[in-house]
C-alpha cells in the first residue's frame, strides 16, 4: 500500500496559495512520499545558499529556476547542468536569474533548485491524465524529447494490475531498447513497473490530481529515478 499522507501536505500548500501546478520541488516531494526515487533537490533563494547546498549535494550538480510562472525552464535559460564546483554554481545562479528576469519580467521566481546530476540512463516518461469517460489513465513511453517526436507510448486505465504494468512497459514500439541494445545492459523494468503501480494506486485514491508527468525518468540496470516531474491539480 502506498502511503499518501505526505502528498496531501504538498497539495494542500499549493491549494492555499491558489496554484494548480506544483513546482518541481513539490512534485518531487510528493513522489518521494509515495516511495518513488527522484534526484535530490533543494531550494536556494540566494547565490550563497546555492553554493552551500551544492557542496552538500556534491558534484556534478544541476541548477534549475523555480517559478510557478515558468513552465518551459530550458527555453527561459533557467537550467544549467554539469556544474563541477561552487564557483560554477555561483555563475550559473546569476546567469539563470538574469535570463529568466529578462525573458519573464512578470514571473514570480522563488529561487533556484540545486539537484544532484543523475547518472545517464535510458530516458522514459511515466505520466497520468484524467479521461472524461474513464477517469485516471496512466502512460508509459520513451521519454525526454522523444515523447514529443515519436509519441511511442502506451496507456492503461487505473487501477493497474501487475499484468497491466508489465504490458504497459512491453507494448511500446521501442521495447527492445529496454532489453539491452548493442552491449548495454537491460534496464530494470520491474523498477519501472513499480513506479507505474505506485502512481496508479496514488491517483486511484486522489481524485484531485488531474495530470502528472515524470519526464524523464532515468531507467538503469538497477532501479529508476525521476529526474524531472510535474503534478497538476484539478481546478
Amino acid at each position, binding site marked *: 500500500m502506498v502511503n499518501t499522507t505526505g502528498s496531501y501536505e504538498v497539495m494542500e500548500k499549493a491549494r492555499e496559495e491558489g496554484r494548480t501546478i506544483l513546482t518541481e520541488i513539490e512534485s518531487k516531494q510528493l513522489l518521494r512520499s509515495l516511495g518513488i526515487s527522484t534526484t535530490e533537490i533543494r531550494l536556494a533563494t540566494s547565490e550563497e545558499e546555492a553554493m552551500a547546498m551544492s557542496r552538500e549535494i556534491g558534484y556534478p550538480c544541476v541548477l534549475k529556476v523555480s517559478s510557478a510562472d515558468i513552465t518551459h525552464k530550458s527555453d527561459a535559460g533557467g537550467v544549467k547542468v554539469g556544474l563541477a564546483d561552487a564557483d560554477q554554481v555561483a555563475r550559473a545562479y546569476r546567469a539563470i536569474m538574469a535570463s529568466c528576469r529578462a525573458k519573464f519580467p512578470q514571473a514570480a521566481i522563488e529561487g533556484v533548485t540545486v539537484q544532484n546530476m543523475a547518472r545517464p540512463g535510458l530516458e522514459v516518461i511515466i505520466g497520468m*491524465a484524467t479521461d472524461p469517460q*474513464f477517469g485516471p489513465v496512466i502512460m508509459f513511453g520513451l521519454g525526454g524529447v522523444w515523447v514529443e517526436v515519436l509519441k511511442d507510448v502506451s496507456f492503461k486505465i487505473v487501477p493497474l494490475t501487475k499484468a497491466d504494468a508489465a504490458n504497459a512497459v512491453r507494448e511500446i514500439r521501442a521495447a527492445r531498447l529496454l532489453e539491452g541494445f548493442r552491449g548495454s545492459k537491460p534496464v530494470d523494468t520491474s523498477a519501472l513497473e513499480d513506479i507505474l503501480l505506485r502512481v496508479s494506486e496514488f491517483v486511484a485514491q486522489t481524485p484531485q490530481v488531474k*495530470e502528472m508527468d515524470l519526464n524523464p525518468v532515468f531507467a538503469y540496470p538497477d532501479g529508476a529515478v525521476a529526474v524531472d516531474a510535474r503534478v497538476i491539480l484539478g481546478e
Partner: protein
Amino acid sequence: MQSETVRQISQIFNAQSVALVGASDREGTFGRLFLEGLRDLGCPHIYPVNPKREEILGFKTYANLTAIPEPVELAILLTPPEAVLGIVKEAVEKKLKGVVVFAAGFGELSAEGKALEQEIARVARAGGVRVIGPNCLGFFSPAAGLSTFPMSLMEKVPNRGGSVGGFAQSGSFTDQVVWFLTKKGAAFSTMVSCGNECDLAAEDYLEYFGEDENTRTILAYMEGVKDGRRFFEVARKVAAKKPVIMWKGGMSEQGAKAAASHTGALAGSATVWNALFQQTGIINVSCMEQVVDCALGFHFSPLPRGRGTAVLSAHGGTGVATADNCLAAGLELPGLADETKARLRQIMPEVGTSIGNPVDIGVASLLNPGLYGEAIRIIADDPNIDMILVNTSAIRACEEGIVEASKTIDKPVAVSIFALPELVPQEYEYLAENGIAAYPDAKRAAYVLSRLAEYAKFKAEREAEG
C-alpha cells in the same frame, strides 16, 4: 451474488405479461407490427393499451395501464415523448418491473428533453421500475416470446432461443445483427437497444449478460459510456469469463488536445478505449462484417489452445495465398508431425497433392470428396495443430465430409468457400446450420481464427492470475 440491477433486467427480458401502449390495428404501424409479433412469438399475456379501442386483433384493449385487471410485468411505450412521464407514473402504481420507451425527442434533442428523461428515470427508479431507452428499439428475447425489432419481425426471424446476447447504442445495429446472424445459424438469448440510457445503460446490460447463464457470446456496439469507471470494472470481470465482441464507433482522433502535460496531450479518447480493450480482453472490431464473422466464429468454435494453424486446401495456389493470410493475421503455421504426414500419405494420391502446411489434397478430392473429412480428422490429432482453416469449392459432398469430421474433433475449424455467397447461398446456409463458420474469403477466416487464439490466450492468462 446477483446484483439487484441484474435481477431486474432479467425480469424484464423474461416478462410473461406485457402491455403494449399505443397498440393499433392500422397496417404499417409499429403498434400493429409489435402486437402481431408478440402474438406470433408466443408471449403468454398481451395487453394492448389504446383509449380509442375496445379490442385490437382479437385482444381486449385497455384505456390505460391501471385499467388492466391482471398484474403486468412490462410495458412497451409507443407514445409521443410528452405522454411518457404520465405512463411511467401509472407503471409505478401498477408495480411493473420495467418500461421500454421508444419515443425520440429527449436528451438527444434538447436540454429540456434531457431534463424530462432524467425525471422519467427518477420517478421510475423511485417506484422500483427500470427504464430501457428512451429513443431505442426495445429488445429481442426469443425464448420469452418478446420482440420489438421491426426488421426481425418483418423478416419473420424465428423465436428460437440461443446463446448469443448483446446490447447496442444503435437501434438499427441490434435489429440487423439479429436478422443477419439468425440467417447464418446463430440464435439469441437477448439483444437490447440501449437508446439514451436515461436509466439502464451499457454497463448494466454488460453485467447482466456476463451473469446470464444462457449467454455464451456477447456482442456490442458502443459510442459513448455513461459510467466509464463502472463499465471498466464490469468489463474486466465479464470479458474474462465470456467473449465480448465490440464494435466501437467514434474511434477517429480529433487533433491534438491542449493540455498542461505531455500525458494529457496524448491521452485521446480512442487511445483510452484501446487501453480498455487490451486490459479487459474485449474483442474490438471495426465494421459490421467483422462483428458477424467473429460472432459466428466464437459462437460455433471451441477456444483453441494456441495459434498453430493447419491450412487444408484442394487447390494448391489458394492454399499458398491462404497461408499468407494466416501469417499476416498473426497465426502460426507449424510443420505437421511425422505421424500426421504418414497417415495423410496413406489416404492421398501421390500425384497432384502436397503434404506440408498448407496441405493440398488436390483436385482428386473432387472425385473423392471424403478426403476432406479424413484429412481433417488426421490433422486434428496432430499435437502441433490448434486450429484448421479449410478451403473448399462449393461442392456439397466436400462440405458434408467437413461437417461430419468437425463434429468429431475439439479444435476450431473455419471454412472458406471458394465461391461468392450470392452465387451459392445454400452452401453457406448448409454449413451454418451444421455449426460451421463459413467465409467467402480465407482472409476473413484467418482473421477470426486469430481473434479466437488471441482471446483464448487472454482468458488462460487471466485464469492463471486467479
